């Protein structure tokens, strides 16, 4: 009985150590990405004049969400990058609807992973899933902003 408890305790400790180690490794891998993203965002925001954002995003529900979703779809990488980028764009005055579509498309549409997804899960499935995800990024952005508008 006592031996079982000891074994159990050892197993939990081992699993916990592994979980922390895995998180540490994941974090170490993303560290250059975090630094790189913040540096790049700082560079772009300093270099690009605010008027540029207002030319691209015209505060129109549909065109803003479409452009946001389009940019998010062709971008790839850790979602962490999209949050930093989206958050800073919002600070610069880009509308919430465009930023939301961008964030959602970034994580749901996988143009870069499309070949791998097609190979493993089937081409038809991968293409339909990505098309729907692109459209739904726009839908999710509009719905989220509308709901937030109702509650504020």
């Amino acid at each position, binding site marked *: 009985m006592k031996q079982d408890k000891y074994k159990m305790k050892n197993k939990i400790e081992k699993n916990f150590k592994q979980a922390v180690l895995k998180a540490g490794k994941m974090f170490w891998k993303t560290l250059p990405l975090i630094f790189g993203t913040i540096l790049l965002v700082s560079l772009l925001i300093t270099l690009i004049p605010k008027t540029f954002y207002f030319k691209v995003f015209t505060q129109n529900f549909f065109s803003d969400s479409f452009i946001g979703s389009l940019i998010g779809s062709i971008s790839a990488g850790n979602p962490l990058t999209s949050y930093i980028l989206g958050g800073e764009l919002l600070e610069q005055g880009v509308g919430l609807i465009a930023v939301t579509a961008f964030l959602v498309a970034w994580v749901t549409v996988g143009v870069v992973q499309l070949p791998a997804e097609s190979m493993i899960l089937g081409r038809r499935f991968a293409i339909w899933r990505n098309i729907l995800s692109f459209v739904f990024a726009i839908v999710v952005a509009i719905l989220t902003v509308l*709901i937030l508008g109702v509650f504020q």
Partner: protein
Amino acid sequence: MKIKEKLQSIGNSWIFLIVVLIFYLILLVVDFSLFQSCLEFFYKIFISIFPIFVLVFILMAVTNYFITPEFILKHTREKGIKKWFFIIVGGILSTGPIYMWYPLLADLKNKGLSYGLIACFLYNRAVKIPLIPLMIFYFSIQYVVVLSLVMIFVSVIQGVLINKLMEVKK
């Protein structure tokens, strides 16, 4: 060939950082005051989000401890609405890069999991619990709650639609 191998061993994220640093180096030579402004902006962002990353790390460790592909596999054996529920929860809790999950999903597909449920799982991977603190920092808690709920709702619609679209072929 050797340079290619060396670059591969460095990893894409390090290459990305090096490329950005090269841009900064060029800026330092070309326009020092602009370089300074960029660094000031970098410092401002970094200082404000650094504490959030400590929380992100803790949440990553906790989800790694509890959620494994075996855990997800165990719960996809449920039936009816319960199955959808566990697929949504599984998608939300799954960690790591997407390609890590493709073999498991292919295996589940062979075992009878519908395309709709696979799409639903993939959609819910977009809701990242360890990154929620960072999202709250930038967008507010109300925004995160509303966006997550809307995404969960849409994931089910996408799943149903995918099932219908894949049926058309048959």
